[in-house]
């Protein structure tokens, strides 16, 4: 009797864990697009840099620690990754993207695509220099997991990997924090006003240029934070190809949710994560034999949503006319 219920719980939790990873990958992207109207192709690369930076902190300082010590070091690593990658984002906005606001939006896509090439290759040079494989996931970072996120937890008769529960908790925490920032703080109000109508906001005395920089840094920082979380997940791990592997799902989530809408992004992340979890389960059970099924489904969701409802789940029809 526990069989069916346990399976449902297992699939649900793994779907939610994937959802929280997808939400983490996409939050920064949607924040940046919402305010600046820039589709940041370098987002995946920023996530990748974050994963390496957080992994480096963990490997150097927290290699032996376990229990509370590891949690403290993880928080430190996540903060370092967020700050550093956020700094890279701020530099990108001030140094490059600011020059292109008056050009057609395609040019911002192109620019950030070029930044991706540079960041990926820089990281590849660093990784090769230290004798690591850029392709395989960085085992040293994976190995810094403390024991309590490594094993399985028994809930309702189901055996659930503790890592998935950790990912869900982390994702929920970050989503709530960003939501609180946007709705409960004065600066969040400014950001929302800027997303609504940046000309009006600047007419009312908001220094929109500075808000742009801050939000770009914040979005990039969220990418770094996502990297810190992915560093521990054996399905992702810190590697150079992580850049394009996270960029594509992040795009899907952001587009499906409606570009630039926070609520839509979270809903879409749950949708995509659950579909991924369920199809992965079907594949593991041998019900579906096509090995790329979950990836295929993710992109089919993208195409389907764009055909039926181009503005996305929570978007308004005129968002595209930015």
């Amino acid at each position, binding site marked *: 009797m526990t069989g069916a219920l346990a399976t449902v719980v297992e699939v649900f939790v793994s779907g939610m864990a994937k959802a929280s990873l997808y939400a983490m990958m996409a939050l920064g992207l949607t924040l940046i697009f919402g305010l600046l109207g820039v589709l940041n192709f370098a987002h995946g690369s920023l996530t990748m840099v974050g994963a390496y930076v957080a992994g480096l902190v963990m490997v150097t300082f927290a290699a032996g620690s376990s229990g509370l010590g590891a949690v403290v070091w993880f928080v430190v690593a996540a903060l370092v990754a967020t700050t550093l990658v956020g700094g890279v984002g701020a530099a990108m906005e001030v140094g490059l993207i600011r020059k292109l606001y008056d050009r057609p*939006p395609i040019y911002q896509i*192109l620019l950030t695509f070029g930044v991706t090439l540079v960041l990926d290759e820089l990281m590849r040079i660093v990784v090769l220099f230290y004798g690591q494989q850029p392709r395989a996931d960085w085992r040293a970072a994976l190995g810094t997991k403390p024991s309590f996120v490594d094993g399985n937890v028994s809930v309702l008769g189901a055996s659930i990997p503790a890592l998935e529960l950790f990912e869900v908790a982390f994702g929920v925490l970050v989503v709530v924090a960003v939501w609180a920032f946007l709705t409960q703080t004065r600066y969040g109000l400014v950001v929302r006003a800027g997303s609504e109508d940046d000309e009006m906001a600047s007419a009312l005395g908001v220094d929109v240029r500075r808000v742009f920089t801050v939000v770009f840094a914040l979005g990039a920082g969220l990418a770094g934070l996502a990297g810190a979380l992915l560093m521990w997940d054996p399905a992702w791990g810190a590697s150079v190809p992580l850049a394009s592997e996270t960029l594509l799902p992040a795009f899907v989530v952001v587009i499906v949710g409606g570009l630039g809408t926070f609520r839509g992004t979270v809903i879409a992340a749950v949708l995509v994560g659950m579909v991924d979890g369920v199809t992965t389960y079907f594949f593991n059970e041998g019900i579906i034999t096509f090995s790329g099924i979950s990836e295929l489904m993710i992109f089919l969701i993208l195409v389907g949503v764009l055909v039926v409802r181009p503005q996305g789940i929570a978007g308004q029809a005129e968002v595209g006319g930015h």
Partner: protein
Amino acid sequence: MFLWFARRVSRVKRRWGVISTETVDRETAVDTDESWVREYARDHVAHLLVVAAFGVYPLLYSLLVALGGGVAGAFLPRPETMTAVFYFGLFAMSFDFISGYTGYLSFGHAAFYGTGGYFVVLVANGKVPLLPADTPFMVSMVLAGVLAALLAVVIGSVSFRLSGVYFAMITLGFAQVMYVFMRDWGFLSSNPRDGVAVSNDLHPAGFEIGIPGVDALNLAIGPLRGDEIEWLFLDLGATEVSYYMVGLVVLVCYFAMQRMVHSPFGRVLVAIRENEERARAVGYNTFRYKLGAFAASAFFAGVAGALFAGVRRSVSPDNSLYFLVSGDALLASIIGGFGTLAGPLYGWLFDRSVVEFLSKTGAGGGLLPLLREYLPGSVVEAQLVGGMTFGEGIEVFLNGHAPLYLGAVFVAFVVYVPGGLLGWVRNRLGGTVAKQLPAYLAKLRR
């Protein structure tokens, strides 16, 4: 008689937008005795020069390498690389044809490139129904283009309801669906992730480019199975034959696209890019124009993919269907000149030259062998920071890492030279090279 024909050609050309109305009037008024052949040759003097330059390149290359040794070998791309520049340049041009001229960024263009590549290889392996394994390459190449065009009509009829970022994303979505599907479809080969190769049992000879059915007018391409010919004093190896045959197909495709771009059809595409609402208000059914352009562009992308697979005799999902392949076409277009048609070919030539110059193996020369040859050993082995020698520094930071520097160049182009190489040249000359060069030559003669 000739006069009538020249007038007629001018009229036709005027209608197709080849020469602007003023020049036609001036020419027909002044040079009425000039034959249409000469007039045509003069209009295309820039094209002729470019074709001639590419035509002598392999000979020039072997001559310079024989004379200059390391220096020429290090800086000039090898003919093998140039063949790749041709077929991928064609793909980049087809990308530019839709993205640069209509302004709709087709970020899933790799889908059509991959369609072409996969189709040709699968036909050769006898895996496509109704087409026997010994179908001539020229036939399967054209069919590959047609299939890509049909796919474009399907994708486009859905995607062109959207614009801007959304259009880029939905085409990307379609391409990724295809990528995942072809990557994991067991029917294709025993290990579809590594791609599909042409079976050597079914196809011992190289793919032939020429007129299908006429054996004397065909030459096989490919590094190992290509034909070698001796003609007069020329001794052409398989590499050079592949270079010329692939170049020939690319040339024909370029002229087909060039004609379209300069036709009224092409004018409407530019109108769509500049102001789609106005184009629609003037009375054009922009949806149909966009769809037509998309299909034509996909046709040439499919042909490019077929050439790519034909030369290499294999195709894999990562080198044909992945979204970074579209990214490469984008890179070539931006560096060469977005919306210039010929520019992406030069952009990709630049890209490949840098990659080869900084290549890890140093095959065909490269930076490090050159330095080893010309700098004294003490400089190459000189210690820099932390015990790293100068040579090792180059090894670590330069060799095999061309994307870093190309990415930086790309960013610089986007910010400072949005027109790209060819766009910049056109800006300096005040018009296309094809138009300005004859005028300049005429001024010299006077």
